[in-house]
């Protein structure tokens, strides 16, 4: 009945002969293999796992990971998504003890499994990339989209569980975006006005996620910077199931103009002002911090400004003098965590947030339940600094 052919060794692992963790991992791979009509499993070189922040996986997630970590060990390089707080600054953050304790249990479980403690949602920026065409398994929707579209890697839009299953087995079903034929876009989006900044690219991505399924082709945005590609990838991954974009045309073409952008903006821009500024989602990399340091040099934020970045990027930026300039301007730099479902923004204290992230805006609106004022970084610095 099943089109997915497992080797005899994989069958044994599925039956539990190689331990409980591998049995669970193969059960997951079998289900997603069936869902995506895979005929076989193929080796992958790198897994990036989401489901690290306690706010995203809850108590059942903690228990699941602890059980899995009894005998589960990574089989390939495995990096992990941000957690709920910056562990170096945890004492100065107002967090309840239960959250901290449960977050620490999650980190310990991943540690036992042997992951790299990356706590980043931009693994493609922090780590060296394997050669183009390499199969990886990336959960974290912005990372999967960026990996397929910009980095030339191959991954399906994995779930936290499926990427973890790939990590423990070193395998993934050969299906969908891993197959050349499937990577060809079936919807084209023609951008008919000049996009100015990262918010515009985010609006485009969010729009595209709603109309495209697997792979989408953009025309009119040929010279895409890394910064805008991050914003686009993150927004694309938020609104739908599409996990890849290319440049050019495809069969069916949909126009994206100012009216389409305005409609998306109306959905996410829910406040005209904000109490706090957040930068990040995805986290800022070294280049983002370099740009920010230049922009705020000699200025001062009038409001609290949380800047979420990858720790590896923070350390490099520190050596280069960027963090000093940002901190002098009043920017509060936080590593190992990010905007999405952060426990640091609570509606009991904050009514609304200013951000340049479309992905962040979606989660702040829908999960943190605070108002969101969307502004480009340029406008944030111009209007919120003195």
């Amino acid at each position, binding site marked *: 009945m099943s089109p997915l052919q497992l080797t005899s060794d994989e069958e044994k692992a599925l039956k539990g002969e190689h331990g409980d963790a591998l049995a669970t991992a193969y059960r997951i791979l079998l289900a*997603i293999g069936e*869902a995506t009509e895979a005929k076989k499993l193929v080796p992958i070189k790198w897994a990036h796992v989401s*489901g690290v922040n306690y706010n995203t996986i809850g108590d*059942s*997630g903690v228990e699941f990971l602890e059980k899995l970590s009894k005998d589960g060990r990574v089989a390939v390089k495995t990096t992990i998504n941000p957690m709920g707080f910056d562990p170096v600054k945890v004492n100065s953050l107002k967090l309840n003890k239960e959250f901290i304790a449960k977050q620490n249990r999650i980190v310990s479980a991943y540690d036992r499994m042997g992951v790299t403690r990356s706590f980043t949602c931009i693994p493609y920026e922090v780590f060296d990339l394997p050669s183009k065409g390499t199969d990886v398994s990336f959960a974290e*929707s912005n990372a999967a989209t960026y990996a397929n579209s910009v980095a030339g890697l191959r991954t399906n*839009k994995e*779930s936290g569980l499926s990427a973890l299953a790939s990590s423990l087995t070193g395998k993934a079903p050969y299906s969908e975006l891993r197959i050349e034929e499937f990577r060809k876009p079936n919807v084209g989006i023609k951008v008919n006005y000049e996009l100015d900044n990262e918010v515009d690219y985010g609006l485009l991505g969010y729009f595209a996620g709603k109309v495209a399924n697997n792979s989408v082709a953009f025309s009119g945005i040929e010279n895409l910077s890394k910064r805008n590609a991050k914003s686009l990838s993150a927004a694309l991954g938020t609104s739908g199931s599409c996990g890849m974009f290319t440049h050019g045309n495809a069969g069916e073409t949909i126009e994206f103009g100012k009216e389409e952008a305005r409609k998306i903006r109306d959905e996410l821009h829910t406040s005209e002002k904000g109490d706090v500024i957040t930068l990040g989602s995805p986290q800022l990399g070294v280049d983002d911090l370099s740009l920010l340091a230049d922009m705020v040099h000699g200025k001062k934020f009038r409001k609290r400004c949380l800047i979420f970045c990858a720790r590896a990027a923070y350390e490099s930026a520190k050596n280069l003098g960027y963090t000093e300039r940002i901190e002098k301007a009043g920017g509060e730099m936080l590593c190992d965590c990010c905007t999405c479902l952060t426990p640091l923004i609570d509606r009991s204290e904050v009514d609304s947030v200013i951000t340049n992230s479309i992905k962040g805006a979606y989660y702040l609106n*829908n999960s943190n339940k605070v108002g969101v004022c969307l502004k480009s970084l340029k406008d944030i610095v111009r209007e919120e600094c003195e």
Partner: protein
Amino acid sequence: MLEEFEGHSEGRMRIKCRVIVKGNDEGEALVTKQPINFLTMIDLKSGIVKDEKHELYKKNIANKVLVFPNAIGSSVGAYSIYALKGSHVAPKAIVCIKADITTASGCAIANIPLVDSPESDVFAIKSGLKVKVDALIGLIEM
């Protein structure tokens, strides 16, 4: 065999579908044509749809046979499905138009029977109707 499964027989409607996660269960149907982001749209303690823009807003997915196209957005949605099971408010079974990786992996560890690719229009099923999902042979009966 085919004839036996299709259309009305003994007053019951049967729809063939594809098995993704094996199992067997029944419950009231809860049907939507809109995709679901399990992380943001569902209250994981109660199973109630909390997204006011979703057509299932204020409806409860607990113990239902949930019929929807596919999951969208967060990769952590798979953990959300597992969390629903932990809170005893998961659907009894899930019917997708095209099962996706998030739903399939969540159902796999939460032991929720999952089928997809129904051979006829499942959106014609009225919410509230008693539905049986046989995710061993791939059959929806009502």
